[in-house]
């Protein structure tokens, strides 16, 4: 059952469009949204959270248009969908203690006695693997990992059905990151939580998300089962993204020389750095279509899937 969906959503700051015609559905399992800086992934997340109104297109909660929800509908949405931001110190009010932050979440939707509140806070802190004594500490008195766990506890306080995780671990050290991912995996299973995981880190998506979409310059260039997406990418950008990630003890990733070109405004946005770009890519913007169980916006997706090997892709370059 679709919990949250974007239907042909376009988002803009002032006159500059940041997200173009994006459709995305989030159901019970873990859904990944892969994108680098400037891809518009955070803006899309804010639209899905109801913080930004789309310039066109609709964000649906269940089957209802988010913009059209009445007071009760909106209250229900606010309980059902909760964010976890990138940096715990950004998500928590620096002047409030962890206990106060969590209590705010608890008491926004229903009244609780002081004792009941304290028990719920202690339970939530324990649920995210923190010592209840931490409730008295302020964000700057905690480590990055602890702050992120408090942010998760705060999101869980309203018993949500879906978490929108915007780069939940990228501000953390690698060892701490691993433990937070374990926590998220466990909580999702235990609480039956769906989640949208937004990140640039393919490894994290590979581990936690069944299906994923890849965002480039505000457009979904490819979407499908994560494992398939990573092992047999159908879009040249997905492939470039996957090949650029260094692997422990692996071959050094080969530079493509033009990755920093600004997204093209006409035709396919990725055509400038794209090794497979041809005239058609300049003249006609590729529409998303079905290729081997994947949605992909590329005129030569079949060739990317079937025929392009690493060595060959760089042959024309030299």
């Amino acid at each position, binding site marked *: 059952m679709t919990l949250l969906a974007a239907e042909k959503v376009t988002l803009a700051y002032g006159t500059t469009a940041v997200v173009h015609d994006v459709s995305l559905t989030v159901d019970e399992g873990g859904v990944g949204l892969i994108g680098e800086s400037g891809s518009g992934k955070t803006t899309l997340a804010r639209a899905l959270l109801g913080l930004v109104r789309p310039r066109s297109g609709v964000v649906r909660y269940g089957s209802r248009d988010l913009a059209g929800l009445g007071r009760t509908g909106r209250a229900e949405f606010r309980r059902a969908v909760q964010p976890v931001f990138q940096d715990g110190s950004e998500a928590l009010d620096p002047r409030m203690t962890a206990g106060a932050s969590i209590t705010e979440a608890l008491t926004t939707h229903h009244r609780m006695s002081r004792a009941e509140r304290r028990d719920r806070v202690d339970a939530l802190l324990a649920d995210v693997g923190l010592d209840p004594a931490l409730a008295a500490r302020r964000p700057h008195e905690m480590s990055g990992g602890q702050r992120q766990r408090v942010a998760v506890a705060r999101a869980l306080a309203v018993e949500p059905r879906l978490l929108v995780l915007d780069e939940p671990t990228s501000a953390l050290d690698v060892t701490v990151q691993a433990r937070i991912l374990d926590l998220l995996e466990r909580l999702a299973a235990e609480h039956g939580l769906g989640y949208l995981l937004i990140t640039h880190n393919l490894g994290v998506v590979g581990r936690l998300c069944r299906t994923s979409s890849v965002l480039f310059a505000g457009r979904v260039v490819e979407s499908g089962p994560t494992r398939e997406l990573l092992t047999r990418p159908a879009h040249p950008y997905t492939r470039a993204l996957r090949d650029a990630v260094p692997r*422990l003890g692996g071959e050094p990733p080969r530079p493509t020389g033009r990755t920093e070109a600004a997204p093209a405004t006409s035709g396919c946005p990725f055509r400038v750095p794209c090794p497979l770009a041809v005239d058609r890519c300049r003249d006609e913007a590729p529409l998303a279509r079905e290729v081997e169980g994947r949605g992909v916006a590329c005129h030569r997706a079949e060739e990317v899937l079937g025929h392009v090997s690493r060595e060959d892709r760089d042959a024309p370059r030299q």
Partner: protein
Amino acid sequence: MTLLSVRDLAVRIGDRVIASVPELDVCAGECVAIVGESGSGKTTTLLATLGLTQGADVSGRITVGDVDVLTASPARLREIRGSRAALVMQSPQAALNPTMRLGTLMRRALARHGVKGADARERAEEAVRAVLLDPEILRRHPHQVSGGQAQRFAIALALALGAQVVLADEPTSALDVTVQAEVVAVLRRLRDERGLAVLLVSHDLALVSTIADRVVVMRDGTVVESGPAAEVFARPRDPYTRELIAAVPELPEAGPALPEVGPALPEAGEDL
């Protein structure tokens, strides 16, 4: 030939030792990486080699070429900064003066080390081309260039000044992964073709494994393990190193090699 050597380095703030490195050498054409998490003292160690740990109490012996950094006079120290050992920082744009065109910064740096006029212009253009940048970039301001370009320009600065040692403090962690490859490739090529010594500080083990010849693992200010990169990553002796390696998210292997594809592809779209 050892270009940078550190012996019994200890950096203290008050009575707390924030970095202690018994022994560390970087030779020409070699990349030594210091890996560790935040608070491990890896950046402090790198900065100490140029005497840039203001307000900290540094002891031990650090030699850059023939200069002992800790006993050198401030003037002598300033002479070797940039010309012998150059710094490349984590956030590319923030490391460049916001009100100055890139060319002006390079010209002033060259003039500071006695290179002026036509010679300076020539070295500037040569250095910028060596990092695959168009000399036209020298007319731009930092907010008009991308992260990857700004980082490669910082490397060009080192080249223009003739530095034999590049001190790279998390040079790619602020960049997108597709751009990282560009910057790392430049560093690798300069190490191989120009015999540059690179001291790389990073928390990204996978990245380090693709460029480093030797690795030093630091934790809470001390060195827990060091040795040839291949060996440390294949057979880590220290439990912390093992934990670091285990924490690198697994990535599905690339797809199988595929058969030949049609004719060479025409160059499409406008260039940078």
